[in-house]
């Protein structure tokens, strides 16, 4: 989806504004939002969660802080999966006759869960491209989720790493089909992306799945 979340290459978004000695959370509610998102039964598909935040309308997305986006995405997923209604969320109270769930994450397993070594690598067909090979990104403009940013479409780069087959977000965000596809790191020269004003030495590398790529 060509949404405003796809920010790479835009300018005039304001100063970067680094903050000295920044706290992990600026306000208590931010820490609660973060914990709620991680503990919620809706935290089952990382790609779906990302896409849900991308679906926040553009003007609102740009105006919201990070934790406001997380809060909004969580509410939307709770409604989508029938865990809560908008009225319940606004009231902070369950409607009469609600069904009691069992938390998927309990305090005793939090430490183990956070340190668990997960993996997005899956068995799938071997990679079609080799490290060192030149590839072109396809001109894809899907209406759903994608991890191919607009600024990197239709450009030629070189494969600098091959990571095996990873869960493919473009499919996975819209259901539970992991549809694993070979993942590569592709390096693009800054001049190929941005033109002759870029420093000729500079490059931008992205992690891209095989369906994004073709032979140039």
């Amino acid at each position, binding site marked *: 989806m060509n949404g405003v979340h796809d920010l790479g290459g835009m300018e005039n978004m304001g100063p970067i504004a680094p903050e000295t000695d920044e706290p992990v959370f600026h306000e208590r509610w931010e820490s609660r939002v973060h914990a709620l998102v991680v503990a919620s039964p809706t935290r089952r598909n990382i790609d779906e969660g990302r896409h849900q935040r991308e679906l926040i309308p553009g003007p609102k997305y740009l105006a919201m802080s990070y934790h406001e986006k997380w809060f909004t995405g969580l509410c939307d997923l709770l409604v989508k999966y029938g865990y809560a209604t908008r009225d319940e969320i606004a009231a902070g109270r369950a409607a009469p006759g609600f069904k009691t769930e069992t938390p998927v994450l309990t305090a005793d397993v939090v430490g183990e869960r956070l340190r668990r070594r997960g993996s997005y690598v899956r068995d799938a067909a071997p990679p079609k491209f080799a490290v060192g090979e030149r590839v072109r990104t396809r001109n894809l403009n899907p209406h759903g989720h994608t991890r191919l940013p607009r600024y990197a479409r239709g450009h030629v780069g070189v494969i600098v790493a091959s990571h095996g087959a990873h869960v493919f977000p473009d499919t996975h965000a819209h259901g539970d089909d992991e549809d694993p596809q070979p993942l590569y790191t592709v390096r693009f020269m800054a001049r190929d992306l941005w033109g002759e004003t870029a420093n000729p030495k500079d*490059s931008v590398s992205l992690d891209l799945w095989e369906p994004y790529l073709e032979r140039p």
Partner: protein
Amino acid sequence: MALRVKALESLMVEKGLVDPAALDALVDHFEHKVGPRNGARVVARAWTDPAYKTRLLENATDAIAELGYQGGQGEHMVVVENTPAVHNLVVCTLCSCYPWPVLGLPPVWYKSAPYRSRAVIDPRGAIAEFGTELPDEVEVRVWDSTAEVRYLVLPQRPAGTEGLDEDALAALVTRDGMIGTARL
């Protein structure tokens, strides 16, 4: 927002969707158990132990796990090395991907539109906002974290630190140095 979040938390607890004690444990983890100190230990070890540095650059996920750092948002780690000729910069233009086990949660600027938009088109200008001017002859490599691979910059060891031990070296390593918005 505080009231809306409080209402949501009450609802989710009432419905049994979350365990309040688990929420407290999660906040404690992100406030106290992860953070740039973890990444600094990785960097200091790489500076003092050449064999570790080799392992780190070949298979960062395993090498970082040797020090006990692993978990969500650190499943597939890649470490990129700064040299006198090369400077690395990490960004996530599409969202806010960041290596939680070694750096903790990202700072606000990392998640915000100004940095996410400019880091790829004007990395030198973005870095300059942090007070570092990179010479034209230094090659800048930007890494846009578009998949579940997470990047950590291995900064150059500062000159004049030959006599320091691993703990003293770790104290010199900054979060921005490991993102690439600063040079140590």
